[in-house]
């Protein structure tokens, strides 16, 4: 399936991009993150991240659909 990825903060630095479209057989965010962490050298354990699909927080076993926008959210530091 085709997914739209957005990257923020240190994940964007490591990926060297703020977004990308990927083809993947991953069916949930957990599998997709494992793939992308391998590819981009992400060091965060998934337990330190949150995941959002199509602009809403969801869980790591969320069933992904073709065309979904998927974002891995590093620990936030606003304020």
């Amino acid at each position, binding site marked *: 399936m085709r997914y739209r990825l957005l990257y923020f903060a240190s994940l964007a630095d490591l990926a060297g991009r703020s977004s990308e479209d990927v083809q993947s057989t991953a069916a949930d965010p957990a599998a997709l993150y494992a793939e992308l962490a391998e590819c981009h050298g992400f060091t965060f354990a998934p337990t330190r991240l949150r995941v*959002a699909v199509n602009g809403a927080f969801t869980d790591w076993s969320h069933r992904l659909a073709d065309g979904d926008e998927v974002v891995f959210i590093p620990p*936030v530091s*606003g304020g």
Partner: protein
Amino acid sequence: MSGFRLADAAIDVHAGLRALDDPGSGACVTFEGRVRDRNEGRGVLRLDYQAYPALAEAEGAAVVAEALVRFEIRAATAVHRVGALAVGDLAVWVGVSAGHRDAAFAACRWIIDEVKRRVPIWKNEHYVDGESGWLHPDNSPVGARE
């Protein structure tokens, strides 16, 4: 008038305060978070705030909406800057009005704590010594130096 917004230019505190005024509010508590010249002993030159805008606005709005349910308050507003900020610049502003001060203080504190904990905004500090880095919520650097 309640809500949350991201601001890409200086926050107008005066406008925020006036929007909270109403004749039934006896108490208004505000919080201003500003860029400090130091963080944990390191000299800070400037900051960049990055947000995931769609989700930051939805999550910020959810925080304010929850505060209106949790506390006996009449209105609450939170505004968070994005982009490049200098030392002394206002990074975040929270204003709460209520009939009485107990609720106004409690809600204002709760909102800033939840915004910092939940809203997808990240701070990149640029230090006097030339280094820079994305911060954790506990203010230790993340990313390149992990």
